[in-house]
């Protein structure tokens, strides 16, 4: 399994039946493909969809129906379509149960940075500030380190923040970590790795309360 597949196949079990869920651009939008076809969930896409579902067969693909990342989606029975003001009213009124979102950096306090790397890559805020500030539960999906192998899970974010103290859980390609009062608590390991090796790839201090894939 690739790092992305490990994250996605673990992320899918975060979705509680009957809930309303937003999947952010990047890894999170791909979670939809890991859900069973009959799974009871309403996927909200901030471009104006409640009830988005997996890509249709080629002959039924609609060029006027995409998710926020540009992927072609279909609609489930009972879906609704609306403008961007209504879409963000749903978000700001805290009607979403869960948002899964990507990160440039995330830290031990649950701060999130994912919109701006000054002078290098600033994709923009998109829906991230409102999602991060207003969703009941935020799960970050991220590789544990960046392409250069530097930690993305930090003591304190250094990039401009998307939102303060908003993240509940981090799912990386190595572990599942909760943001708790005492800092980051490792709940599960997704690979065979020692506590020391996991800590070595993490700038934030970890405490361990693990089950699964122990070394």
């Amino acid at each position, binding site marked *: 399994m690739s790092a992305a597949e490990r994250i996605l196949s673990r992320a899918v079990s975060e979705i509680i039946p009957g809930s309303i869920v937003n999947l952010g*651009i990047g890894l999170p939008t791909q979670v939809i*493909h890991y859900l069973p076809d009959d799974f009871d969930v309403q996927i909200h*896409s*901030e*471009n*104006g*969809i409640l009830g988005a579902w997996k*890509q249709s067969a*080629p002959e039924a*693909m*609609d*060029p*006027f*129906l*995409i*998710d*926020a990342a*540009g*992927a*072609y989606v279909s609609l489930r029975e009972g879906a609704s*379509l*609306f*403008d*961007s*003001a209504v*879409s*963000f*009213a749903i*978000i*700001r009124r805290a009607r979403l149960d869960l948002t899964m979102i990507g990160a440039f950096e995330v830290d031990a306090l649950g701060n999130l940075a994912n*919109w701006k790397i000054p*002078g*290098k*890559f*600033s*994709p*923009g*805020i*998109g*829906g*991230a*500030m*409102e999602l991060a*500030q207003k969703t009941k539960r935020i799960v970050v999906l991220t590789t544990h380190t960046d392409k250069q192998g530097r930690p993305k899970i930090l003591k304190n974010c250094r990039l*401009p*923040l*998307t*939102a*303060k103290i908003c993240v509940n859980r981090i799912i990386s390609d190595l572990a599942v970590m909760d943001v708790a009062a005492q800092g980051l608590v490792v709940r599960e390991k997704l690979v065979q790795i020692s506590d020391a090796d996991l800590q070595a790839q993490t700038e934030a201090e970890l405490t361990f309360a693990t089950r699964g894939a122990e070394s």
Partner: protein
Amino acid sequence: MKKNQTLENAIAAIPSGAVVMVGGFGNPGTPFSLINELVRQGQTDLTLIKNDANEPGHGLSRLIENGQVRKLITTHIGLNKGVIDLMNQGVLEVEFHPQGMLAEKIRTAGAGSFGFLTDIGIDSEITRPEDLLEWQGQTYKVEMALPADYALIHAAQADGLGNLLYQGSAINFSPLMAMAANHVIVETPDLGVPGRFKPEQVHTPGAFVDSVVPLESLTSDYGILEHHVRR
């Protein structure tokens, strides 16, 4: 009250230096024909307001690549590396807003109001001290309404009075922008006669629309982007 216009005449109303809202989120709702005509006519020094910059070589990106744009007010340009580079080089001024704030600023202008109070981004770097308002013991951020001179809109269907219907995820910013601009130009591949819509199903009432450009057909711009198809 005939609002039908040719593509050329409708876009010729826009002067250089205008503030222009453009509907669409990614491809759906992007008025590619109106944009391509604006590229052809060559008005410059434009301020554009759109959720995103489309993708390189398409839609809004063509106006930017052609040097016609002074400033872009947007939410997310992550799918357009070329526009990010122009921003980093200082060639293009880019102003980012949280997506729902951009929608609400436009909606507020369209409702004839001047601003609203929010807590979105209140402790982030997008908020300046002068944006804050203390009111009855609470601190809010003031977001001002965002109007425009022109709006360019793609509608799935229209009638000769300018009543509009949108489709799929192409609704997005279009009905909001159609209310917030002083002069609203609509393109549609399906222009019919008044009475074709059930009145309660009209998305944008014709009172907001100034001209409607019928499109003979939809070009490949409006089709499936192969690189977004999951194999």
